[in-house]
């Protein structure tokens, strides 16, 4: 009897329309996914450039990239987020003021994507560098031997060929990205964890809301797993199966 009552009130709390908080949680999830996608994408761009820079760049490029990957991977993400979020906002505004413009409020989404993208980029640099090194040198040499210019060679041969080696690492990075969005709660951005905190704080139904948030994170992770499984299967299309893929 009381159980049924409790269940009923729990469902009311999670209902989509007010006074339920379901819409808030889903909006938070949407923001989390948006930031994770943006950060992951930015991370891939930085990572690809970083991996090529580390492999083929000059000594100065390589040193700078080594500093980048070392520092970013050494400092806790939370600290980086606080530094980058407040420092970057501050620097941008000081520049704007110096140029006689008015201060701006940096959007939470843009800041979140930038900050997490820079973090993702450092890890992606190493994942992609390893994957590029795993491509048999002969395949790259064959393309060079037929006169393929470097950029085309990267796009047509090296990057597609390294994908199968990179996917497991990149899938990890994506999951880290989805969960790192929770750290943006500390700067007050309305992603899933922040929305959950608000709902739980207002209603005092902590268990209900954090459990619901956990389920949403889990669902996101499961869907991601299916998608990455398909991408990996496609990336490995030319390779004989040697006893099952990662998923």
């Amino acid at each position, binding site marked *: 009897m009381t159980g049924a009552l409790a269940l009923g009130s729990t469902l009311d709390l999670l209902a989509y329309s007010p006074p339920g908080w379901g819409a808030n949680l889903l909006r938070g999830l949407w923001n989390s996914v948006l930031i994770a996608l943006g950060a992951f994408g930015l991370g891939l761009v930085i990572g690809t450039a970083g991996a090529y820079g580390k492999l083929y760049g000059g000594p100065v490029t390589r040193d700078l990239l080594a500093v980048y990957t070392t520092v970013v991977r050494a400092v806790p993400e939370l600290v980086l987020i606080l530094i980058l979020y407040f420092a970057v906002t501050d620097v941008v505004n000081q520049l704007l003021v110096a140029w006689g413009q008015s201060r701006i409020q940096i959007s939470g989404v843009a800041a979140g994507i930038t900050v997490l993208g820079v973090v993702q980029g450092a890890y992606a640099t190493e994942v992609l560098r390893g994957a590029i090194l795993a491509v048999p040198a002969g*395949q790259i040499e064959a393309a060079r031997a*037929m006169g393929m210019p470097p950029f085309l060679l990267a796009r047509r041969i090296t990057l597609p060929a390294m994908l199968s080696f990179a996917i497991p690492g990149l899938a990890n990075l994506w999951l880290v990205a989805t969960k790192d969005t929770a750290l943006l709660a500390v700067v007050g951005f309305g992603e899933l964890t922040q929305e959950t905190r608000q709902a739980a704080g207002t209603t005092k139904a902590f268990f209900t809301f954090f459990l619901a948030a956990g389920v949403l994170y889990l669902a996101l992770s499961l869907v991601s797993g299916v998608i990455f499984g398909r991408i990996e299967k496609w990336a490995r299309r*030319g390779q004989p199966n040697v006893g099952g893929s990662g998923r």
Partner: protein
Amino acid sequence: MPATARQPASHPRPEAIRIEGLRKSFGPLEVLKGVSLRACEGDVVAIIGGSGSGKSTMLRCINFLETPSSGRIVIGGEEIALRADGTPASRKQIEKARQSLGMVFQQFNLWTHKTILENLIEVPVHVLGTPKADAVARARKLLARVGLAEKESAYPAFLSGGQQQRAAIARALAIEPRAMLFDEPTSALDPELVGEVLGVIRDLAAEGRTMILVTHEMKFAREVASHVIYLHNGVVEEEGPPDALFGSPKSDRLKQFLKSVA
């Protein structure tokens, strides 16, 4: 079976590849100490020699997979401009030269993420700008020629070594090269698969293709080559028509070498 070894024709043919005084060092080790080679169109030049003689390096210098330390390289009458340290002065010129040279590797080096047909049309379509339909039609003809018409949708990893090497030869032919470069094309193959690959190369020689061939197959070199170069320790120890070189070698080193591989 008609002998495919040909004597140099009496009328002059255009020169395809010439290297002069080529030197190459890896660190303190000098592996090529001033070697030269000249191939006119239709010539089949075989480079033989023991392990570490520099024969593969010599071949790889022709299309700059190895950067020579010094020397001259002329492809189709055009000399490749080199800086003082031997590195090519113009990437574009190297790329153009490479597009006229079909290279076949010991390890096949097919692109594993592409089907056999995709391997054949990749460079024609994306580098040379051949319309895709034309490239596909030509690729199918080449695959039929090397006996792989059935395999065009297969990925390289699902083919035998001999099939992969025949596909790699077709891929090199697909760029319609001025000359073919073979770097020990049968060394990575199981003995029973060597014959099918040599058969394809023999046909190419018979149709008058210009080829430079680094090989351990002495019988084959004697049969298809118009000119044989014996390298030892980075120098051309002896060269000449195959029958002279294999039939009556002059230098002791070549005699010894031929005895050791017989």
